């Protein structure tokens, strides 16, 4: 990354779209929303806050956004379609500092199906990088590469590359860290927009994530998935939920039979990265979001016929998969593709762990977490002994829920 040599001295920056594209199909509302998401992309990594000002505000915003053509009173005239697309001014005291200009003669698009046009979100993220003090980067994955690289995906899902984050954090520092800070793989693609429900479809009640009692919890490519009935939430590595509203199970996991409305356990398999969802005495294997093949019985993993699982996780320390039911667990050797002999064993090996946990997962820092009800038990990396202060309430740490004023004592295992 490259720094421009200037930065903002404040942590809350104001912005406003002063002029909108004249010939684009994008509505003003869409443009404002994309700008909001593009700024948020930088904010979540640095703790910077962005506040939109209304047009009647008495003060000028720090970042004034315009769609303009040709020569427009600065040193970077636009040149019609193609060529230069946009620019932004580095932070500073000058009134133009932070201002961001888009060439109004480009065909600005969002989620263009035919690949035509220029993706406004991608360009906005790049330009706001300049408005915050970053120069151009030559890093292959950086959004700060000077050349337009096409759409970058869903604004809700997009995350800056490491190069961009490091550049930004060099200027503004990091947000308080969570244990899930570093994604190890490309995140899963977002689900397609949901099809409209027929008018007579009964709407499903949405569960309250703050109640806990999840059916399954899994770390899938650095994001923690919380499953509850036909819904799930996603916690990003930055520690933010993708949305407080859960997503529908069957709209994301393509091919999962409609009859499966509860996922009892889930985990990402090492070393091939396949994602396994368990329900009843069977499991389904997904490559990314697509189902691979037919459901398989749990006997394939060494469990007795008809047995089910409460929790499954892969332990990085030995690369083996642990399958828990009640007070017992089995161990499966993925490399040898067979169950280890001598199992099941008593779960008491995991000192302090609750029996029949809702699920178990390993965080991005290598700690192992058992979940049950509304609490979690943390086992430091490589340890089979729970932290002395376990269990702790899940909500505030994992699910953006308020801490209970009088925390009811958690059940001791």
């Amino acid at each position, binding site marked *: 990354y490259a720094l421009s040599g200037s930065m903002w001295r404040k942590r809350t920056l104001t912005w406003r779209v002063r002029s909108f594209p004249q010939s684009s199909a994008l509505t003003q509302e869409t443009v404002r929303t994309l700008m909001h998401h593009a700024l948020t992309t930088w904010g979540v990594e640095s703790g910077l806050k962005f506040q939109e000002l209304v047009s009647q505000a008495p003060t000028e915003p720090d970042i004034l956004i315009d769609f303009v053509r040709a020569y427009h009173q600065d040193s970077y005239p636009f040149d019609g379609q*193609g060529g230069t*697309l946009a620019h932004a001014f580095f932070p500073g005291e000058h009134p133009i500092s932070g201002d961001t200009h888009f060439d109004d003669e480009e065909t600005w698009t969002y989620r263009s199906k035919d690949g035509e046009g220029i993706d406004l979100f991608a360009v906005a993220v790049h*330009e706001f990088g300049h408005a915050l003090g970053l120069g*151009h980067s*030559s890093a*292959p994955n950086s959004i700060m590469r*000077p*050349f*337009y690289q096409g759409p970058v995906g869903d604004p809700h899902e997009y995350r800056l590359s490491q190069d961009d984050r490091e550049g930004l954090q060099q200027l503004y520092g990091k947000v308080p860290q969570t244990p899930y800070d570093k994604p190890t793989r490309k995140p899963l693609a977002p689900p397609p927009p949901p099809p409209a429900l027929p008018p007579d479809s009964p709407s499903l009640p949405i569960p309250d994530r703050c109640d806990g009692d999840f059916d399954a919890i899994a770390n899938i490519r650095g994001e923690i998935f919380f499953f509850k009935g036909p819904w799930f939430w996603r916690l990003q590595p930055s520690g933010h939920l993708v949305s407080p509203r859960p997503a529908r199970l069957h709209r994301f996991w393509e091919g999962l039979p409609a009859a499966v409305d509860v996922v009892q356990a889930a985990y990402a398999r090492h070393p091939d990265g396949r994602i396994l969802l368990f329900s009843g005495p069977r499991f389904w294997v997904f490559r990314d979001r697509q189902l691979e093949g037919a459901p398989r019985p749990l006997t394939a993993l060494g469990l007795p016929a008809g047995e089910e699982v409460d929790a499954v996780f892969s332990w990085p320390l030995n690369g083996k998969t642990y399958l828990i039911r009640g007070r017992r667990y089995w161990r499966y050797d993925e490399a040898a593709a067979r169950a280890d002999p001598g199992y099941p064993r008593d779960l008491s090996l995991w000192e302090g762990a609750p029996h029949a946990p809702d699920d178990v997962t390993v965080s991005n820092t290598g700690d192992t977490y058992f979940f049950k009800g509304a609490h979690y038990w943390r086992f430091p990396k490589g340890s089979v002994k729970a932290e002395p202060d376990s269990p702790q309430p899940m909500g505030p740490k994992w699910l953006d829920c308020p801490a209970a004023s009088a925390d009811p004592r958690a059940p001791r295992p």
Partner: protein
Amino acid sequence: RAREPSAQDVSLGVDWLTRYGYLPPPHPAQAQLQSPAKLRDAIKVMQRFAGLPETGVLDSATMATMQKPRCSLPDVLGVAELVRRRRRRRR
């Protein structure tokens, strides 16, 4: 063997390299020519930045990259940016 860049390619290339900070802007009072060595070095830096093979010549891949849609700001901050700031202040 790659074809020699045309005079027009060289002219466009020099203009592009100057605009994005790889070559110093010409002094307004002098009809200054860029030396071949400096031009070659500037092309190499640009190629490295863009992830292209560092040939030091305006080959077809380099010319194609120069025609890609992009941000208006220079890649190499320094002289080019200072000149722009000076012009902005004067205006």
